[in-house]
């Protein structure tokens, strides 16, 4: 096995990991701040891809789709929080879980009715087609672009949560919502925004995935499983955990693909089982 191939495989793993990070972030943020396990995450990822495709076909530009769809679906997410999830706060964790689980079926069926059950082509934007020579091998420009977008998103999130007043409120709200209310902060408004942000991230992942995979109503189901594995490995609710776990899972999948390709999917679950055995709260999670 030559070094070039191993380096190339490592890079493929990082690129795959970046996509996993993006899909896991939204799930992790919503759970960390609201304590809601969002089972509609995969479906919202898929709706985001369709919304991106729809906006792109209306405007004739991928870029509008990439910008507008996450905002659009993020606002839709706020409606979901306001009308469906809010009445369930204070009840057991199962209630919002079951609600979002049901919602995911509604969304998938809805898309099937509007856009049909078959896949729809989502062409790669012309400016990002082709491959780039990395010195050790060729890699699609579009995937490198996705890694860049994920990097920027993670940076903005970190700055937003760590360096702004709103971020401070969000972090404090996650620790002790009652105290925040006593201090006069309208915590329900914060939760509304956080849920919208998480959903927006899911749909951004959907739009970005469109040109790499075919767009179809079931594209979210696998993504949901992957996002859960990554957040569980990283520690539920930990942002840093999601990022590190996402990259680690990507690299592990890629290296497995090199030596035992038929194991490439199952290895992710094996890794999760291993982490749960050794550290049940995940790499960066806190014990409840």
């Amino acid at each position, binding site marked *: 096995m030559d070094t070039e*191939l191993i380096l*190339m495989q490592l890079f493929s793993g990082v690129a795959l990991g970046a996509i996993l990070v993006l899909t896991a972030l939204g799930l992790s943020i919503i759970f960390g701040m609201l304590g809601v396990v969002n089972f509609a995450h995969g479906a919202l990822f898929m709706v985001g891809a369709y919304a991106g495709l729809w906006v792109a076909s209306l405007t004739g530009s991928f870029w509008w789709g990439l910008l507008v769809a996450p905002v659009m679906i993020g606002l839709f997410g706020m409606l979901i929080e306001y009308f469906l999830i809010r009445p369930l706060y204070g009840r057991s964790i199962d209630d919002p879980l079951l609600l979002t689980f049901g919602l995911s079926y509604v969304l998938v069926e809805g898309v099937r009715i509007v856009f049909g059950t*078959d896949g729809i082509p989502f062409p790669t934007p012309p400016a990002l087609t082709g*491959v780039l020579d990395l010195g050790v091998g*060729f890699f*699609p420009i579009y995937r490198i672009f996705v890694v860049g977008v994920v990097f920027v998103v993670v940076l903005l999130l970190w700055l937003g949560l760590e360096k702004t007043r709103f971020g401070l409120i969000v972090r404090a709200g996650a620790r002790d919502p009652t105290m925040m209310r006593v201090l006069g902060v309208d915590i329900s408004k914060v939760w509304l925004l956080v849920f919208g942000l998480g959903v927006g991230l899911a749909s951004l992942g959907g739009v970005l995935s469109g040109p790499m995979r*075919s767009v179809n109503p079931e594209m979210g189901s696998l993504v949901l499983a992957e996002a859960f594995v990554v957040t569980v490995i990283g520690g539920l609710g930990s942002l840093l955990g999601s990022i590190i776990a996402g990259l680690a899972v990507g690299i592990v999948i890629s290296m497995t693909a090199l030596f035992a390709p038929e194991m*490439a999917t199952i290895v992710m679950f094996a890794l999760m089982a291993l982490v749960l055995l050794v550290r049940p709260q995940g790499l960066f999670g806190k014990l409840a």
Partner: protein
Amino acid sequence: MTDGIRNITRTNISRRRALAGLGAGASLVAMPWIARAADDTIRIGFPTPLTGPFAAEAKDQVKSAELAVKQFNDKGGINGRKIELLVRDDKLNGGEAATRTLELIEKDKVHAVVGSLSSAVQLAVNEVTRARGIIYVSISQSDTINEVKDFSKYTFHEALNPHMTAGAVARYSFKKGSKVAHLVADYAYGHEMLRGFKRAQAEIGAETVGEILHPFGAADYSTFMPRLRSMRPDFLCISNFGRDQANSIKQAVDFGLKQQAKIVVPVILHNQRLAVGPEVFEGVVGGANYYWGLESQLPSAKAFNDAYRAANGGAIPTDYGAYGYTGLSSLLMAMQVAGGTDTDKVIAALEVLKYDVAKGPQSYRKCDHQSVQSVLVLESQKKADMKGDADLFKVVANEAASEKVLRGCTELGFPA
């Protein structure tokens, strides 16, 4: 018990029966006639994966099967008996398919079963039908079903099999000394296709430079691409199905493999070509049982397309869709010859049947009940060369129906 369930699932008949009973003023004379009329219907079970990654192909199978049933019913049915198609979702799962098939046989009292869309699932259906002595016409690819351990006199295989499909694609594409890299879905279909290709390669003298098995239903293939590139193949041969085909071809193209190698697939899918667009598929070569474009050469294809268009608002039939039509038509034609549903008579009729309903002459080989038929090799058109949205492929080869492209009966384990 069984009757109770049948009345729930087939409400139209129970309602008719109830109305007739009322009309006759509870007269006992009318009842036996009504009851016999209901029992006269010829019922065909049709398990197919309506949900899951092959849903698009399954839906087309159903439409084509319904067309075949409608055509026979319009002509007065078989010996005056109407035909009813009972479609069930097998969810692309062997266990589910076996349960649905058993229900079709036990509760719905079907006379025969046609269907399934997976090399693995059809074996589960076949397991049930042969144990119950019910005719099963399988309409998806499998080599195993031809072999003596899975065969029974009730088992018919109307679809192409991997041996003939991969063989036709290999004979068209590969030359002596060609280097072939394989990306293969890790389940029965992929394994059988790989075996078919390698056997043809051995005859041609084309070399295998590498094999990668990928998990079934994977969405991301990027991690396989660096190794495939490093094999420096002349041909990248991708043996998978449904959305796996769309995703893997798309990503191979993204990684620039098309500049390096020609992409060939055992079965090129109409619906997946539509799902990823002409640019990605351009130049990809693959086998097919049917392509609507045959209508310019074949009257039977023209007749099938026209009937399908009329029944489906101008839509054209697809490859796997056509199996629904050819498979069901062959069974119904045999029932017509047999004059009804007597299993042994229908089997005898199927074994000698010569039919041409869509793609040229077909017949079932006596030893393994494999349908001997033509294999098409198609190449995906460049967008600029397409005459209309449906002009997806160019027919680059049409291997005529011949027992010579099948494995011999003795090799399959049948007595010489």
